[in-house]
């Protein structure tokens, strides 16, 4: 697929093999993918299809067996740990299934973590602004245990956005939420791409949440089996999954 705008994510020939010999598992097998700026991509597929591995490699949390990844023009290739860490801090935002907030910090402190790690003097102001935008302007000083699951995930999204990253990676962001909260988070992630111009790459099992995305990538056995644009209706992902024999 070709695009006219600059690609935030460029993946080529990406392969990840775990184990060796009889125990060898090809989690990713020669995957190519381009994600343009501001696009909201959802990755779906059965368990073990390689979607989480793809996300981990993209986030620089794991290293590929073969192939190249570049984020916002920077090849991850052989970056040493410290530079990789810095790249994650400045260009990538993470949203996890289990929220992963620091229990002893309040909402502002959690959301401002990456900025404070970067020594940013306006950390609190920027985190507060983002919390405001995700609808938590009135819960700034609450600790995670004083927030609902949906609210905790909003804090996590504010944290992911606080450094103005080019790419937001979301791993099953609604897996731990009730359906109402899940819908709200899906909508919020779409806003991240449409209103705030970030590329979002989200892994999910839930076709309803996937329908918030603009583009759907379907995976099976470590390969991309389908790649299509969505129309915003609930039916798109379902039809695609059925067509690929995944539903």
């Amino acid at each position: 697929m070709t695009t006219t705008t600059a690609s935030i994510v460029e993946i080529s020939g990406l392969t990840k093999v775990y184990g060796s010999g009889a125990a060898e598992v090809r989690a990713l097998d020669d995957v190519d993918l381009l994600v343009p700026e501001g696009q909201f991509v959802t990755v779906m597929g059965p368990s073990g299809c390689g979607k989480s591995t793809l996300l981990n490699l993209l986030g620089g949390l794991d290293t590929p067996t073969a192939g190249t990844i570049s984020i916002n023009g920077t090849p991850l290739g052989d970056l040493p740990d410290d530079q990789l860490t810095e790249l994650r801090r400045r260009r990538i935002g993470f949203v996890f299934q289990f929220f992963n907030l620091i229990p002893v910090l309040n909402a502002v402190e959690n959301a401002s973590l990456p900025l404070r790690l970067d020594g940013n003097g306006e950390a609190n102001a920027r985190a507060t602004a983002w919390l405001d935008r995700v609808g938590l302007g009135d819960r700034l000083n609450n600790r995670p245990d004083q927030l609902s699951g949906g609210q905790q995930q909003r804090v996590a999204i504010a944290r992911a956005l606080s450094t103005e990253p080019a790419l937001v990676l979301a791993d099953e962001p609604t897996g731990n939420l009730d359906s109402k909260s899940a819908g709200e988070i899906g909508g919020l992630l779409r806003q991240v791409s449409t209103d705030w111009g970030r590329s979002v790459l989200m892994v999910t099992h839930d076709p309803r949440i996937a329908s918030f995305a603009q583009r759907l990538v379907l995976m099976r056995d470590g390969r991309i089996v389908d790649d299509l644009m969505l129309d915003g209706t609930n039916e798109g992902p379902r039809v695609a999954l059925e067509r690929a024999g995944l539903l």
Partner: protein
Amino acid sequence: MKLPLTLAWRYLRGRGSRSLLTTLAVVFGVMLTFGLNGILPAMVEAFNHNLLSAAGRVDLTVTSAFNQPFRADVVDRMLAVPQVASASPGVQRIVPLPRSADAPPDALAQLVVVGIDLTTVGSVHDFPLAAGRMLTAGDNAAVVLNSDLAGQLALGVGDQLVLPAAGGTARFRVIGLLSSVTVPGQEQVYLTLPAAQQLFGLGARITLVEAAFTAGADRTATEQAVATALGPDYQVGGLSSQSTLLASLQTATFAFNMFGLFALATAGFIIANSFRTVVAERRRDIGMLRAVGTRRRTVIGMFLVESLIQGVIGTALGLVAGWGLAAGLFAVMAPIFENVMHFHVPSPLFSASTWITSILLGVGVTVVAAILPARAAGQVTPLEAMRPQLGGVYERRVGRRAWIGVGTVVASLFGLTTGSSSLVGLGAVVFLVGIALVAPAVVNPISNWAARPLELFFSREGAIARSNLQRNPGRSAITVTAVMLGLASIVAMISIVTSIFVGFTNYLDKSLSADYLLIPQSIVLGQGNVAAGPRLAEDLRSIPGIAAVSTLRITQAKSDGGDVQVIGVDPASYLKVAAFDWNSGSSDAAVAQLGTGRWLIANGVYAAQHRLVVGQAVLLDTPNGPRTYHLGGVGNDYLNAKLSTLYASQDNLQRDFNVTTDMLLMANRTAGADPDATKARVDRVVAGYPAFRLYESSSWRAEQMRTFSQTIVIFDVLVAALALPSLLALVNTLAISVLTRTREIGMLRAVGATRRQIRRMVVAESLLLSVIGTVFGAVAGLWLGYALVAAMSAAGWQMPYSFPWSGLLATVVVGITFGVLAAIGPARSAARLDVVAALHQE
């Protein structure tokens, strides 16, 4: 606030009681190191304070290096030094006050009698009069003293003060009261110099010169100039000749430091354990931090900052507690010191090095203990953030470490058997480190064995408890090690105390075989005692029913650059009433040899310090010049067991040291003499010598034993303080064990375990840990105690090793009690867990 600091502080606060518990461990360690080290400098200071003049404008004091009276022309030689403005000759002696039977225990036991030269003393001391008049020349039977002291003695102007003298007693009239304030331990009464010289039989000799410098004189240079002008026979500056007593205080400090170190090591283990758990609990948080861009070293730094905060808080509290401990110990010891040694101990004193050592150790141990867990935290990958939390099952490789541990234990045995106290100390620490390394490898096999008897009492819960303990041998081993350290300290300490006790009892029995003893009321500071002329011994000999009388005389000499106490014995009569506890190779023949020339007997401390062998020449500096003696034997007596001491014949003491007065008299009854009648006759003779107290050996022995038992109270306090950190270690581990297994406990409750069974499971685990720790501690403590006793024997404190049965019993009781106590809190919280919430906990 910087992020790592904020996070560290919040996490610490978030852990609440667990942070408190681990911090308490640091508090205890610092308390022991700091508190115990505050005691020695205070004693040294007390010495100096008590011995040096407390008031006046004295810049410099000159005394005899041999503690002998000297000629007054020293004053002229001092005045020849340009910066010396004035010098005043004087006499200063401590005299005991006769003690009446109904006197309260804190009644004043001694006075410092000061003879002042009226023409010169004004340049170094003021005597502000409150009542009556000052001494004038020719006042030969008059004293002045401070009003507060007079009040204490119930004296007023015109009253009589009776003082013991060489020839019996002397009476003085109080003619004036001074308004100055008396320093405790310096209860001085002032006489004219001639009156004091007459009282003590000194002729024209004096015992000290006090000097004042010209304004702006260089203190150090002037002291040096005076020392050069007077030569080596004189001591310039402080009266710091009690170096032998200081040496035995230093031995005590060594033991103090070792136990303090043990307590801190225990604290280190507790903290290491806590941080290991904290890292395990926070893997998800750490993974997220790494994922959102935290560097490894920031993560490591975060944990180190957390330990630093704990270290700083714990150390600060420990310093406060240490001050309290020292003050408390002083409160217990003060009466003993004042009664036995007539030596006032004011309050603990903390030197700069004690502050620095305690702070560095307290903070250092905490941070060092956190280094390994912090590094483990740095190794957590960002991927951890993606995974659901794993259960708390993790095994550790222990093989190589265990072998290093075995090697360390073996290596430490060399240090422990050398007999040099510093090597024994090092060996002890290395030994414990070795055991700590071996512990993880052996804790599982041992718990298999130890669980069997336990399962008799905990038939259903015992097996689960054992497997809980075994699934994390690293954590169990650290706990066992911490318990071991605490209990090993107890056993080792009690070994030493029992051995000293048994050793002294033996000395008492052997060296005080006389039926009657005449002893000055203050026997340690030899220089302060009033001795008796030869008439007292003669009077005793003439009493019907007295078979043999022998006396001891005392003086000081210098040898090999140090001070040594020299005791004069009468070779002909000594063995009839007393005995030596001989070291191997020496016998009673050495006593007879003393009378045949310049022969000596050295006690064990002196012989060991100077590496003397029988037959060797010993050069002594005496007031009459250097004299060469030869060593005839090595033996000990009770009174001088702790001090470097040489024994010579009384003839030699007279010839080389000019000493002719008796310090201690011993007498035996003839067989068949009536004890009561004889005692009554002896009492009548002694009544003329109020400086002396008559003891029958049996009552003297009883009194000594009582004093000794009082000192043991101090050790009990110490033992308790040493054991407490191991209780904290147990509580901490159990609390962690319950916390990390919240979900499992929920499951156990869900499948039908009663609250009572959960409680018993935790108690069983606690008991198992404490029993293993107790076994380790008992074995390690026995071995350490044996090595320390051997080291002290090698250093000259001859003492038989005595097996500490009571210590072992105490240890087992303490170990099991701690096991139960430690489980109370964690068992209760485990049993109270809400099943549904526990099952849903991540």
